[in-house]
């Protein structure tokens, strides 16, 4: 089993001064770049000629996601659409990037922490706990901001309610559950995508040809579902935060 290459954390490809640039950082930058280029191209074509096939396809995708947002948060769809749609697209492409041919397989041997290690150039952007934890913290902080913007200081009454001991206890639980949500968000996404990569590595190790093909299909589905789950949960929590209680 010595040939089986599995690393639970992202590995640095090169050092930029004191910082280590890891393979997931490169992939997430590439994914962001692709999304930005797609958006710019879409905008340019939309102004020039809205009947192009590219424009129609992108519009259909965006519209169907908007309908989905509308079905969950009917009153605040416009407000939450930008956040959830960008999270959905980024997580989707970030997870699928790990399934590209050459990802996790093409790389170089590098001396790392005193021993020679194989470092692949590409690794799924969301198969890194730092990335998913960062996304989760960003989402939870923006949810608090949405709640504060909508309800003002009344929003924080959910957490600090001193009217009676029972409410105080419930508020304390609410406060803990906000932090638990961050952990839950981060581990769900990381676990699913990383488990998929381990599964693919193990299958390819056991049977090198053809056998991993159906599993790649499975991982495409898992990547889509997890992106959808991440975005929907962010949407549901945001919708709960802006809804006044009692």
């Amino acid at each position, binding site marked *: 089993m010595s040939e089986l290459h*599995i*690393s*639970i954390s992202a590995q640095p490809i090169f050092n930029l001064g004191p910082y280590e640039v890891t393979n997931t950082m490169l992939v997430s930058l590439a994914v962001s770049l692709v999304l930005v280029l797609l958006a710019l191209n879409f905008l340019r074509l939309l102004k020039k000629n809205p009947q192009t096939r590219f424009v129609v396809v992108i519009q259909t995708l965006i519209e169907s996601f908007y309908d989905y947002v509308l079905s969950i948060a009917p009153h605040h769809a416009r407000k939450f659409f930008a956040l959830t749609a960008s999270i959905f697209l980024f997580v989707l492409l970030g997870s699928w990037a790990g399934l590209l041919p050459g990802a996790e397989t093409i790389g170089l041997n590098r001396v790392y922490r005193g021993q020679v290690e194989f470092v692949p150039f590409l690794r799924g952007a969301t198969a890194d706990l730092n990335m998913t934890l960062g996304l989760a913290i960003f989402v939870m902080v923006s949810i608090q901001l949405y709640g504060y913007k909508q309800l003002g200081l009344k929003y924080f009454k959910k957490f600090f309610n001193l009217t009676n001991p029972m409410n105080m206890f419930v508020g304390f639980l609410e406060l803990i559950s906000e932090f638990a949500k961050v952990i*839950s968000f981060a*581990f*769900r996404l*990381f*676990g*699913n995508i*990383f*488990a998929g990569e*381990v599964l693919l590595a193990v299958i390819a190790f056991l049977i090198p040809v053809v056998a991993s093909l159906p599993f790649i299909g499975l991982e495409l589905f898992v990547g889509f*579902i*997890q992106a*959808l*789950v991440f975005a*929907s949960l962010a949407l549901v929590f945001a919708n709960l935060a802006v809804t006044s209680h009692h």
Partner: protein
Amino acid sequence: MEGSNDLVVGLTIAIGGFGPAIAIGLIVSKALESIGRNPEAAAKIQTVMILGVAFAEAIAIYSLVTALILKFV
């Protein structure tokens, strides 16, 4: 941890997978029941069902992550 052997790793994911397996079974059986009662709502039920399955699956994923950390770190 140096002391964690293969048995511990195997048991972690085996016991951790037990609950979510039952949960997913219950979710899907209830969803199928309601689709049988009201076939027009199939698309809506399916979306919610997949969300629920993903939630239940997350618990198994936690123990999988624990098992992987025990094994490889």
